């Protein structure tokens, strides 16, 4: 269907129609025309490309729109969900190229990197599949999560093997006493009943053997439990630390989407539950299995027929266990999640207790907790309903089994096929045998609980950081501090926060980022720190893409001062030395001096050894900020980031902090975000951001002379009226004429 001399340049799939209903469609771009069709209807609509045409792309709330304009007239509009955005974006870029020069050689129009057929994103040359789609197609983790615990058990193989041998011995020892009841019955008690006197020597030997086996079982059982508990504690501890270490390496994005209480309960109680399972329940289970196998072997060796009858209920019980297993597991998963919910309420409320009390909402929060608990109860009740039926049923089955053995045994004795001694031995064995089965059935619930816990742990361990450590990091020489942002885009969820931003920052330059809140200042800072990775484009430091640098090595070159300085529990000295724990006391004092913190620290009763952080010495906002400045000074970073460092303090304190900051900024590439423009008086250049785009760049005087966006911002602050240009228009309010209840 292509005309001669026409080549296909780009194709993008669309998945929505004009009314935003799901419908497949496609838009194709050739060097002459734009073609499209919707929903498999075969006719392609076409628009020959001419110079007046323009494609405009925008997106809102998960749905994107590609509009074809001729001048100011809308010719066509295509809609799609965000998943298709990269392909559409590519196409609209190519459209601009084609319009400029339709006869550019098609080879030149071919993209340099291979492009994913599904989403249109570029596939890096080293990868075989598209990183974007590949992540989508990723198969879910195997449900056999408990087996994956083997990775943590491996280092303790030797001790596990010892534990197994001990278990074997202990179990065998416990099986000896019933065996000895046979001769006691047949050779001592029954003959006595028939008038034969008791053979005291034989009785003494048998009783001694009985005692010896019981004693051996005690000793071996003790050793076994100790060894295996030791191992499982260690496995649990390894699991906990590994999970926590992995968690710390995950990006801020991960933490942004989770709730503290849930993560805490995963690392704390889930690992504990797994540990308990390994040390207690799994051990019991292994013993039970051994016991059953050995008992079965002994029974068969004594009398195969009776053994058959005894083992009859076994398949029934196995079947029942299987039946309940599935239901229980989902139940327990649910219980876990509900526990997370209960924890979340606590984690939300306790840090925010000042707000709760200030607004007198204690009873509301208590209600929320009660609600979470009620949910917990409801879920537990449902699980317990299944569980409570399960246990008695097993008992019922085993008791019935016992009756069968009695009946069959008595019949066999009456026909002289077996002796009374054999029957008593059998009854003694299966008494144990069935109790083991009963306790074995309990393992189902414990296994399911532990498996659910393991799943939630592995969910953390399987999560790949969205700021991945490069496989072969580029060695980082001493940084000069040149930062270059090349066409960066960033999207948080379905909201584009940074759109196509270009900026070059010279070494040692101080840049002030200015703009309304929500204009993308803090996001930009987060991107430069690599707390997040850009969706598109690249950030280069000294000409190297920061994604190819090792994350910790790169971050050690960045000093960050935040609006709300966070002090850890510990002494002031420890807090200052947080980024460089090996710093000497002299270094710490020097940094504190430069940060103008030295004097107030000395006024504290314990000086540098005063405890701060939670429950520690209370410090004012300005004092805490100066400690965090000292912290940044101590690591002597090439790149310094001040994110609203003086926003939360009064003007007097700001002056003190400013003095400290002036020391910090000297000679470093500095990016300062500030709402108060006076803070940025020392900046070499100011970058004015608006809705994720750069609107103006230049020194203060130049921007003032230009009378643009910066001028308006500055005027607004000078008049001490916030965002005056927003107030030019007073919104008109249409009152609800028929509003029932009238919310206004």
């Amino acid at each position, binding site marked *: 269907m292509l005309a001669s001399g026409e080549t296909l340049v780009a194709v993008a799939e669309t998945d929505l129609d004009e009314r935003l209903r799901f419908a497949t469609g496609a838009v194709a771009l050739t060097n002459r025309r734009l073609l499209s069709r919707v929903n498999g209807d075969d006719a392609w609509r076409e628009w020959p490309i001419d110079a007046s045409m323009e494609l405009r792309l925008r997106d809102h709330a*998960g749905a994107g729109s590609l509009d074809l304009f001729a001048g100011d007239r809308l010719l066509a509009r295509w809609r799609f969900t965000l998943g298709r955005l990269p392909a559409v974006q590519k196409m609209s870029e190519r459209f601009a190229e084609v319009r400029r020069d339709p006869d550019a050689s098609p080879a030149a129009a071919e993209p340099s990197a291979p492009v994913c057929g599904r989403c249109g994103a570029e596939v890096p040359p080293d990868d075989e599949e598209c990183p974007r789609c590949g992540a989508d197609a990723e198969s879910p983790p195997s449900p056999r999560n408990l087996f994956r615990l083997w990775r943590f058990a491996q280092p303790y193989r030797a001790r596990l093997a010892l534990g197994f041998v001990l278990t074997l011995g202990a179990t065998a020892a416990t099986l000896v006493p019933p065996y000895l009841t046979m001769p006691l019955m047949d050779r001592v008690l029954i003959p006595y009943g028939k008038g034969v006197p008791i053979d005291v020597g034989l009785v003494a030997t048998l009783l001694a053997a009985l005692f010896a086996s019981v004693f051996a079982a005690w000793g071996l059982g003790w050793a076994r439990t100790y060894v295996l508990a030791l191992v499982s504690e260690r496995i649990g501890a390894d699991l906990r630390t590994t999970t926590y270490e992995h968690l710390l390496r995950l990006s801020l994005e991960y933490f942004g989407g989770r709730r503290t209480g849930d993560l805490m309960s995963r690392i704390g109680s889930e690992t504990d539950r797994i540990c308990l399972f390994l040390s207690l329940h799994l051990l019991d289970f292994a013993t039970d299995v051994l016991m059953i196998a050995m008992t079965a072997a002994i029974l068969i060796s004594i009398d195969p027929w009776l053994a058959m009858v005894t083992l009859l209920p076994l398949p029934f019980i196995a079947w029942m266990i299987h039946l309940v297993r599935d239901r229980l597991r989902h139940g327990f998963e649910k219980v876990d999640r509900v526990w997370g919910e209960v924890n979340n309420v606590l984690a939300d409320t306790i840090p925010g207790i000042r707000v709760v009390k200030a607004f007198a909402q204690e009873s509301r929060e208590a209600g929320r907790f009660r609600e979470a608990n009620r949910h917990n109860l409801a879920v537990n009740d449902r699980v317990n309903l299944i569980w409570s039926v399960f246990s008695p049923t097993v008992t019922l089955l085993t008791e019935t089994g016992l009756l069968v053995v009695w009946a069959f045994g008595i019949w066999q004795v009456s026909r002289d096929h077996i002796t009374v001694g054999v029957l008593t031995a059998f009854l003694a064995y299966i008494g144990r045998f069935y109790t083991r089965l009963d306790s074995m059935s309990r393992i189902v619930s414990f296994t399911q609980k532990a498996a659910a816990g393991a799943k939630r742990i592995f969910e953390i361990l399987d999560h790949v950081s969205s700021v991945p450590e490069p496989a072969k990091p580029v060695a980082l020489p001493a940084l000069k501090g040149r930062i270059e942002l090349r066409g960066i885009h960033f999207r948080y969820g379905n909201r584009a926060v940074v759109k196509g931003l270009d900026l070059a920052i010279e070494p040692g330059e101080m840049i002030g980022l200015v703009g309304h809140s929500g204009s993308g200042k803090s996001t930009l800072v987060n991107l430069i720190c690599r707390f997040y990775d850009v969706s598109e484009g690249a950030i280069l430091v000294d000409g190297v893409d920061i994604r190819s640098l090792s994350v910790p090595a790169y971050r050690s070159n960045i000093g960050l001062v935040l609006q709300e300085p966070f002090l850890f529990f510990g002494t002031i000295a420890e807090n200052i030395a947080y980024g460089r724990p090996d710093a000497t006391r002299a270094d710490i004092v020097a940094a504190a001096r430069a940060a103008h913190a030295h004097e107030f620290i000395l006024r504290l009763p314990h000086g540098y050894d005063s405890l701060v952080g939670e429950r520690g010495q209370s410090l004012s906002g300005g004092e805490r900020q100066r400690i965090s400045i000292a912290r940044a000074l101590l690591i002597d970073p090439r790149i310094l980031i001040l994110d609203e460092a003086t926003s939360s303090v009064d003007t007097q304190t700001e002056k003190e902090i400013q003095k400290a900051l002036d020391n910090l900024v000297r000679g470093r590439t500095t990016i300062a975000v500030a709402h108060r423009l006076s803070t940025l008086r020392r900046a070499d250049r100011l970058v004015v951001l608006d809705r994720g785009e750069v609107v103006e760049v230049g020194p203060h005087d130049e921007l003032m002379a230009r009378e643009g966006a910066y001028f308006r911002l500055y005027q607004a602050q000078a008049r001490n009226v916030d965002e005056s240009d927003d107030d030019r228009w007073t919104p008109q309010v249409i009152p609800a004429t028929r509003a029932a209840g009238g919310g206004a």
Partner: protein
Amino acid sequence: MNADAVVQAFGFRLSRNASGRLVFTSATGEVFEGVVPVRAFPITSPEEGFALVTAEGRELAWIARLADLPEPDRLLVDEELAAREFLPEIRRLVQVSSFATPSTWTVETDRGPSVFVLKGEDDIRRLSHSMLLVTDSSGVHYLVRDHARLDRASRRLLDRFL
């Protein structure tokens, strides 16, 4: 009601230009192009509280209820809302690829059938006791208005993720 009367009663007038954008003319004759209607409570109370905002996001007018607008304007606002709002409501879960995430969901929504990838259980958020918001791997939101009122099969599938 003629156009002038509309201006008097509500202080503004709406129209659509050749590029398909909404144009707002205030009572004082100020003209804003590319005006966007926005619902203030799109999920909990979609029929109450609308704002007309400029392309830059500045509020021009507040409309307590859409029904209070005169006919031509209301249609324009309705159309614009329909073209802008995208929150498919899940009516039925047809299939989920696995109960462990990431999981591919095949669903029927009020906007037709769709397939998406759920990255983790955390992407299902509880908005209220019965209302759920599901976010797919590319950031598109799906709403479950009342999970208790889905059909039995859907409820059973959904239940495994809650």
